[in-house]
């Protein structure tokens, strides 16, 4: 239970910082809305092509918003040297990492709370509970993996460059399964021959558990200087 206590405390600290400083969330929401505006111009969307292309646009925006959000979580700590201070406490690196990842997950979910309604307004995307569930499930695993690489990249030169190179190839499983599930959910049909109903969620959950465990195990080596 000590682990959970530390995790929640670190996540609460991050969210409190964000609420007081209001640095990341306003920038992220603007980024999300602007991406949709650019997608609207770039694809020349209308009432029929908007819903058709929106699964792809959703995942593109989500992936890049994630890179922005996760990159900041550890960069800010490195800038003021507060991560070292936290690691000096007896809390333990895996619990601190889990807290940071949880905080980043909540931030990205807040960003999705703007993204999905904005897509419904701008692109006339049919946002159903199935779409929301898919996006949330993918967010958890992507956040843990992304935070691990953000912590890793924060210790290098050119961290903004390294994070996408490391995180994007490892996010492929989430994007593949998630985008397919969103496509099916948005087209309103069942999964049909592709998969039995509910299976994509189970697969996403499996990926979440796998990467939660793997990145928590690896966190000790990444954070431990």
């Amino acid at each position, binding site marked *: 239970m000590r682990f959970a206590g530390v995790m929640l405390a670190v996540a609460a600290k991050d969210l409190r910082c964000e609420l007081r400083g209001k640095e990341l969330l306003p920038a992220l929401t603007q980024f999300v809305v602007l991406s949709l505006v650019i997608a609207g111009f770039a694809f020349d969307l209308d009432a029929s092509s908007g819903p058709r292309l929106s699964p792809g646009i959703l995942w593109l925006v989500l992936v890049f918003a994630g890179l922005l959000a996760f990159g900041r979580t550890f960069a800010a700590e490195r800038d003021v040297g507060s991560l070292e201070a936290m690691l000096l406490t007896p809390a333990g690196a895996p619990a601190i990492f889990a807290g940071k990842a949880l905080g980043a997950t909540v931030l990205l979910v807040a960003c999705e709370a703007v993204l999905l309604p904005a897509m419904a307004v701008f692109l006339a995307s049919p946002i159903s509970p199935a779409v929301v569930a898919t996006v949330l499930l993918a967010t958890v695993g992507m956040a843990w993996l992304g935070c691990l690489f953000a912590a890793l990249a924060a210790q290098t030169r050119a961290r903004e460059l390294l994070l996408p190179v490391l995180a994007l190839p490892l996010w*492929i499983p989430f994007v593949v399964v998630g985008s397919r599930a969103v496509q099916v959910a948005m087209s309103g049909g069942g999964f049909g021959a592709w998969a039995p109903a509910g299976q994509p969620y189970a697969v996403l959950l499996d990926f979440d558990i796998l990467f939660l465990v793997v990145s928590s195990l690896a966190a000790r080596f990444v954070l431990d200087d």
Partner: protein
Amino acid sequence: MAEVPPGPTDPEGAENRRLTALAGVAVAAMLVAGWAIFVYAPQDALQGPVQRIFYLHVASAVAAFGCFAVVLLGSLAFLWRGSLVGDRLGRAAAHVGLVFTTVTFLMGVVWAKPIWNWDPTRTWDARLTSTAALWVIYAGYLLVRRLAPPGRTAMRLAAVVGVIGFVDVPVVYFSVEWWRTLHPGPVLTAPGGPAMPAPMVVAYLVTQAAVGLLCGVLVAIHYRVQARRDAALARAVAAQLELASAPEGR
């Protein structure tokens, strides 16, 4: 650390000569493999001469996976025991593995052009995608080494990427397989024995042995380069420290 004078008893020189001899054997083995591929193996009835790409394609894919398994083991050895040998082995194997992945990829593309009438804009094959991801992951592994502060930090961070990258590759593969795949299934390990005539299997095994040897020699050479570079760095640091701690320093 005493300087060893060069001569017949010089261990460095003996090591160099041994590696040179091994490299010669590997080149000879590759020539034999070339003979097996182009002369010994029969022509494929359906695909024609293009099928001969298969031997080198599969052999280098196996060699690349072997290299990445070595990266995994080296990374684990470094994370668990702080083994410098494991780290150097990982460094060497990642470079060589990237080369063999590139060879596999290029051979596959050349084969796919006439056989599938391949058009990358229409075909998103599972193995192509996961191989591309594999390539980028291990390029990232080498990039981390370059961008991280040199020394233990770079080794530690790269080892984490080496382990997670290897875990992710099968996951990427199975997730992408949810899309339809065009890539041929296993030919050699097909149920009920290899689905090809015996001379083809022999040609493949000869090629695999030659490519495996070449791969091992390349890793050994690269390992040696890394070891000497580390030793040179350690000597330079030691000299600096000696200079700084001398009573009349500077």
